[in-house]
C-alpha cells in the first residue's frame, strides 16, 4: 500500500510540476538575432482572463502576419522579419511582471502588453526599471499613466472615457432626454476609474446621479447593488463592469422588476459572448468600445477597419472585437516607431513612440506626455437584433439609437 501511495503522490507532484513548467514555456530566441526582430509578449492564455488574453494574442499574431507579408520591419537599411515570443502569465500580475524580466534577461527589450490594467500596471514598473519599452494594448486605467513612467505607451482610450462616452452619447442622441442616471461598478481600479469618469460626465451634462454602488469583481449576483438604486427609479443604469457582472446586471434588472429606459455597460456588450449568453435580453443595451468596424482611418498594413474585420474572420473564424484590434494596433505602433527610429535600441524606439502621430485602422494614434492615446474617441454601440450597431459618434454611426432602449 505504501509504495502505491508513494507512486501516486510522485505522479501527482510530477504532473503539477509539468503544469507549472508548461506555463513558463521554453526560452525564446534573443532579440536582434540575425534577421529577426523579436518582441516579447506575456499573454493571459490561462486563468480568469484567458478569453480576453486569447483575443489579444490573435491580434498580435495577425500583426506579425501582416507586417511580414509586407517584407518585414525596415530598420536602418535592413529588413527584419517580425516575430513575437509568447509566454503565458496565467492572468496573474506578478507573473506578467516576472516574464518582462525574463524577456530582459534574454535581451528582448521591446515588449507588447499583457491583458488588462492590473497586469499592465505590474509590467510597467519593471519596464521602467529595465529600460525596456512597452506598448500597452489593453491597460486603460488612468493610474498607470499617473506615475511618471516614460516607457509605457497605450494605444487605447483611457478608462475615464469608458462610461463617460455612454453618458455623452445619451445626452447627444436620446430624445426625450433622460434625467437620472444610476452608476454601478465592479470593485477594482479600472472599473472604479471608469465609473468616476462617467459620474463626472453625467453631472456635467445635468443628470441626477446615484451611486456608484460597488460589487465584488467577478460577481454573478449584483442584486444588492441594484436593490440600492431601485428606490430612486433611475432612467438609465450604467454599469462599469466586465462580462460576468454585465450579464448579471441585465438579467437581474429584469428579475428585480426595475424599469429603466436604458442600460449602458462598459466592456461587456461589444463582446460576442454578451449576446450569446443573454439572447434576446441583450437587445437595446448600450456599450462603449475602443473600436468597431465602423471606425474611420486606414494604414498600409491592415487597410481599413472592415478589411481588418475580414482578416480576423478569415484567420480565426469570428468577427473582430476591439480586444483583437487594440492588440494589433499596439503591435503596429511598435513596428512603425522602430522603423522611424531606424534602430532597435529601446531608448531610440521610446523617443520615436513619443513623437508618433499616425492614422491606422484603429483610428489616430498619438500619445500625450504621460503615454496615453487621447486623440482617439471611444465609440458607443447598441445591441440591435443581436448585433452591435455603432450609434455614436454621429460621423461613424451605422444606425440610429433606438429610444427608449428597453421595451417596457
Amino acid at each position, binding site marked *: 500500500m505504501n509504495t502505491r501511495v508513494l507512486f501516486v503522490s510522485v505522479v*501527482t507532484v510530477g504532473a*503539477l510540476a509539468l503544469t507549472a513548467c508548461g506555463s513558463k514555456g521554453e526560452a525564446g530566441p534573443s532579440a536582434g538575432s540575425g534577421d529577426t526582430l523579436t518582441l516579447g509578449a506575456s499573454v493571459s492564455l490561462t486563468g480568469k482572463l484567458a*478569453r480576453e488574453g486569447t483575443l489579444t494574442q490573435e491580434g498580435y499574431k495577425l500583426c506579425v502576419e501582416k507586417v511580414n507579408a509586407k517584407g518585414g520591419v525596415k530598420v536602418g537599411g535592413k529588413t527584419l522579419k517580425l516575430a513575437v515570443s509568447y509566454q503565458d502569465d496565467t492572468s496573474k500580475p506578478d507573473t506578467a511582471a516576472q516574464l518582462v524580466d525574463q524577456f530582459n534577461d534574454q535581451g528582448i527589450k521591446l515588449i507588447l502588453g499583457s491583458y488588462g490594467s492590473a497586469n499592465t500596471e505590474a509590467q510597467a514598473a519593471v519596464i521602467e526599471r529595465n529600460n525596456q519599452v512597452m506598448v500597452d494594448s489593453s491597460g486603460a486605467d488612468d493610474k498607470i499613466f499617473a506615475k511618471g513612467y516614460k516607457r509605457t505607451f497605450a494605444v487605447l482610450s483611457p478608462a475615464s472615457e469608458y462610461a463617460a462616452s455612454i453618458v455623452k452619447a445619451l445626452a447627444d442622441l436620446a430624445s426625450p432626454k433622460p434625467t437620472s442616471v444610476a452608476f454601478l461598478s465592479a470593485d477594482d481600479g479600472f472599473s472604479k476609474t471608469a465609473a468616476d469618469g462617467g459620474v463626472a460626465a453625467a453631472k456635467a451634462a445635468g443628470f441626477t446621479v446615484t451611486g456608484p454602488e460597488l460589487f465584488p469583481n467577478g460577481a454573478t449576483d449584483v442584486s*444588492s447593488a441594484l436593490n*440600492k438604486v431601485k*428606490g430612486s427609479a433611475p432612467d438609465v443604469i450604467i454599469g462599469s463592469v466586465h462580462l460576468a457582472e454585465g450579464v448579471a446586471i441585465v438579467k437581474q434588472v429584469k428579475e428585480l422588476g426595475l424599469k429603466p429606459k436604458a442600460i449602458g455597460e462598459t466592456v461587456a456588450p461589444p463582446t460576442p459572448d454578451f449576446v450569446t449568453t443573454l439572447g434576446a435580453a441583450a437587445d437595446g443595451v448600450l456599450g462603449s468600445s475602443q473600436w468597431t468596424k465602423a471606425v474611420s482611418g486606414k494604414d498600409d498594413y491592415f487597410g481599413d477597419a472592415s478589411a481588418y474585420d475580414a482578416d480576423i474572420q478569415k484567420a480565426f473564424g469570428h468577427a473582430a472585437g476591439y480586444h483583437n484590434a487594440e492588440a494589433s494596433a499596439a503591435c503596429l505602433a511598435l513596428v512603425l516607431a522602430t522603423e522611424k527610429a531606424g534602430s532597435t535600441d529601446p531608448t531610440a524606439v521610446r523617443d520615436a513612440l513619443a513623437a508618433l502621430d499616425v492614422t491606422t485602422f484603429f483610428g489616430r494614434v498619438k500619445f500625450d506626455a504621460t503615454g496615453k492615446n487621447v486623440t482617439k474617441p471611444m465609440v458607443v454601440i447598441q445591441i440591435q437584433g443581436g448585433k452591435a450597431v455603432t450609434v455614436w459618434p454621429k460621423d461613424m454611426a451605422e444606425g440610429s439609437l433606438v429610444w427608449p432602449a428597453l421595451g417596457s
Partner: protein
Amino acid sequence: MTGFLQAVAYGLLQGGLLALVAVGFSLVWGVMNVVNLSHGAFVVLGAYVGLLVNQRLGLDPFLGMFVAAVALFALGYVVQRFVINLVVNGPIFITLLLTFGLELLLTQGMNIAFTANYQGIQTTYAGTSFAVAGVQIPVGRLLAFVLSVVVTVALVAVMNRTRVGMSIMATGMDRGAARLMGIRARHVYALTFGIAAGLAGMAGTMIGMVGTFNPASAGGFTLLSFVIAVLGGLGNMYGALAGGMLIGLVQALGGYFLSGTWVNALAFLVLILVLMFRPSGLVGKAFYSARLEV
C-alpha cells in the same frame, strides 16, 4: 424596508442553490475524510453538460440536470474507484494534492474543450419574476431553490432509509466493522463520490440557468462548498442546507449594507464566528466525530 426584504429573499434563494453545490462536498468529506478540491470543477462540468443537452437536444435545464447528474455520477464513480481510492488511506495532504491536480486537469480540459467564453443556459422563464408584497421573486431562482430543498430531503431519506444509504453511513462511521458486516468499502466509497459528483452536476445546471459560468468559476465553487460544509457540520446534509442559506443571506445583506469586495470577507468572518461558538457546525454534532479509524 422593501429593499431589506428584497435582499433577504434573494439571499435565501441564492443560499438554497449554494447548499446544493455544497452538499456533495460535505458528504464526501464526512464519509471518506477526503477534501475534494475538484468539487467546483464537477459543478462547472455539470453546467456544461446541461448547456450541451440544451443546445443540441433542446432539453429544458430541469430535464438536462438529470443528464448532468447521471454523467457526473459515472465520472465521479470512476474517478474515486480508480484514482482517489489509491490514496484514500494516505495522509490528508496526499488526497488534497491529488484532488488539486484533478481540478487543474478538469479546468484546463474544459478550457480546451469549451473555450474560456462565458456561457449561460437560456430559458424563457428563468428571468421573469412576480411580486409578493412589493418583493420581487425571480422564477428561475425560486425553482432552483425548491429543487435544492427537495433534493436535500430526498438525500437524507436515501441515507437513513435505504440499504445503500445505510452502508454509506456505516462505512463512514467505522469502516472495519462495516467490512465485517459484508459491506464492500471500495464500492461504497465510489458510490458516495459518484452521488456527490452527480449532485454537483445538478447544481451546475441550475447555476447555468440563473447565472453565467466559465471554467475559471470552478475555484469559487470549491471555496464556497468548503465554507458551507464546515459551517453546517461535515457530512451533515441538513447542515449543508442551513450553511448554504446562512452564507446566501450573509452575502445578500452584506452587499446591501456594505460596499464592494467586503462581501467576500464576510463569508469567512461568519465561518470564524460560528466555529468559535459552535465548533462542530451549525446543526448538531459533526458526523466525523463518530468515526472510528481502523
